């Protein structure tokens, strides 16, 4: 770690020296249009287009499946009966005596390349430039649910009370006041870590850098900002030969699991 930070410093110094000449233009070009030299630092260059990009890291080794986050989210956002913004799925694998159960908390991934934003016909759902969160302007939304079809994670739903599209907004009312989201606040096992993934001093940044993290459905190219440690991507449709898998989700009225 100290080696790499040394090399960062020397690199920054080098860039600073070079940038006094006209070569600074070329450097910026090489850095992919980055405005400042620090963006070329491998430790801080996350590939995210926003300067501040809030995200969440869920350590599945610490999750005990207590659903406290589900309840906290319901209470915090006043989510009506029958729908959820965030929930925990139970993944049962194996046959007795080699059986086990793991937990998979699900929430909006606040993708850096969100399909839902691209298809929205009114521009009601958008990416906040200040922190990269995907939010819905309920005053503009017409409730067509096109975004709900576009989301590969099935995180969007029709709010039965307001009749508009609804989803997890990472508690922007708390986050913008410097608090953590309600689900993070309540997490008993401290499985959820919230923070700015671009800030090299943040806990989430350090944990992502040091641990094998994965995201859900990476092949869709949405670049999710919710990261998991210890994620097992097996479900009923992709189980390996001889495996027994059963996934229990709160979406009881949906036969498919998306």
């Amino acid at each position, binding site marked *: 770690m100290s080696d790499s930070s040394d090399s960062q410093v020397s690199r920054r110094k080098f860039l600073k020296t070079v940038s006094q000449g006209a070569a600074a233009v070329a450097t910026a070009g090489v850095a992919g249009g980055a405005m400042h030299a620090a963006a070329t630092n491998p430790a801080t260059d996350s590939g995210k287009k926003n300067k501040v990009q809030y995200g969440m890291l869920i350590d599945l080794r610490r999750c005990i499946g207590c659903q406290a986050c589900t309840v906290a989210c319901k209470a915090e956002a006043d989510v009506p009966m029958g729908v959820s913004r965030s929930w925990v799925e139970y993944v049962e694998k194996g046959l007795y005596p080699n059986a086990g159960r793991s937990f*998979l908390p699900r929430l909006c991934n606040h993708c850096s390349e969100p399909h839902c934003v691209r298809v929205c*016909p009114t521009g009601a759902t958008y990416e906040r430039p200040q922190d990269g969160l995907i939010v819905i302007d309920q005053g503009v939304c017409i409730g067509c649910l096109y975004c709900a079809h576009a989301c590969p994670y099935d995180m969007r739903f029709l709010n039965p009370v307001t009749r508009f599209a609804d989803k997890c907004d990472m508690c922007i009312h708390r986050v913008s006041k410097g608090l953590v989201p309600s689900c993070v606040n309540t997490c008993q096992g401290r499985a959820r870590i919230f923070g700015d993934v671009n800030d090299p001093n943040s806990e989430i940044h350090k944990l992502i850098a040091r641990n094998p993290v994965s995201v859900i459905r990476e092949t869709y190219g949405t670049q999710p900002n919710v990261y998991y440690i210890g994620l097992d991507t097996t479900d009923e449709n992709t189980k390996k030969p001889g495996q027994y898998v059963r996934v229990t989700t709160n979406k009881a009225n949906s036969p498919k699991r998306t």
Partner: protein
Amino acid sequence: MEQHLMWNWPMIVYLFLAGLGAGALAVSGIVVLWGPAGEFRHRAALIARLGAFIGPLPVIIGTGLLIYELGRPFRALNLFTSNFWFLALNPSPMNWGSWFILLFCIFATVYALTFIPWKSLLRGEWGERLEARGERLRAPMASICVPLAIAMAIYTAILLAAVPARPLWHTPVLWLLFTVSAISTGLSAIILVQRFMFRKPGAVRGAVRREDPAFRVTEYYLVSMKVLLIIAELVVIGLFFMFAHMTINSANFAVQTLLPGGEMATTFWVGVILVGLLMPAFIEGFYLLRTAVLGHEFEWPYVINVSAPIAILFGGLMLRYVIVVGGQITGPIGI
């Protein structure tokens, strides 16, 4: 199963009606622009008129259904008013579609107005003036309406195909399937209305008589065109399955709902393929071949030839049903 359908029957009926209206308008406009002259002139004029009158109505009804489903009628105006420049630069298929619908409704209505026999409706100078203006406007309006109608038919498919998270919809063949089905159902609607008009032997509508030889020949060509469209649709459905099968991921998994053993299999194979495509193709093909091969005069039993267009219309509706519902009960596989 009904609970989790986010796009329900209003969307299904809308897609069907929009395709039907666009198809009828496209057929009408094409007949006006490149239609036959001579002894077939009156016959072509009747088809163009029927198509023009059928065109805007289903689209307006379908759009009404969509707005009804939204629950807040005036919120739908946000499609046109909010973030205009943002959406012009980042267009969503639904935003394009809403502009298409708006333009379609306006131009198709104006186009239909040019076909109204004003002279017999209004006595005096106004009737003649409106009729003359209508005849002058007809061809220019048709040249606007044909591309608009085809764009409308394609958009109904692009709307669904634009979302990668619905593997059954996210296929490059869907626009072809919906466009062929739209023209097929539009033509069937025209033929059906016309069959009702010329029900009795000796029926006369304007300058067209059922006993004219031109009537019979046109009928023969119309029915052949319909059978060709059915064959084209079967080919496109084959391509649809091939595309899904050659894809090693969720699309392959999703198309299993339509294949035997899947949830939608009966609806698809009975409703769309058997009733909607094969049955009318065989019935009408039989009478066509009788004329083409044996040289008989083209003659049809009335009941059978009314039921064939109805079957095609039913098949078009079932196709939208199967695609819209099948796309929603399947999704990406794996986590």
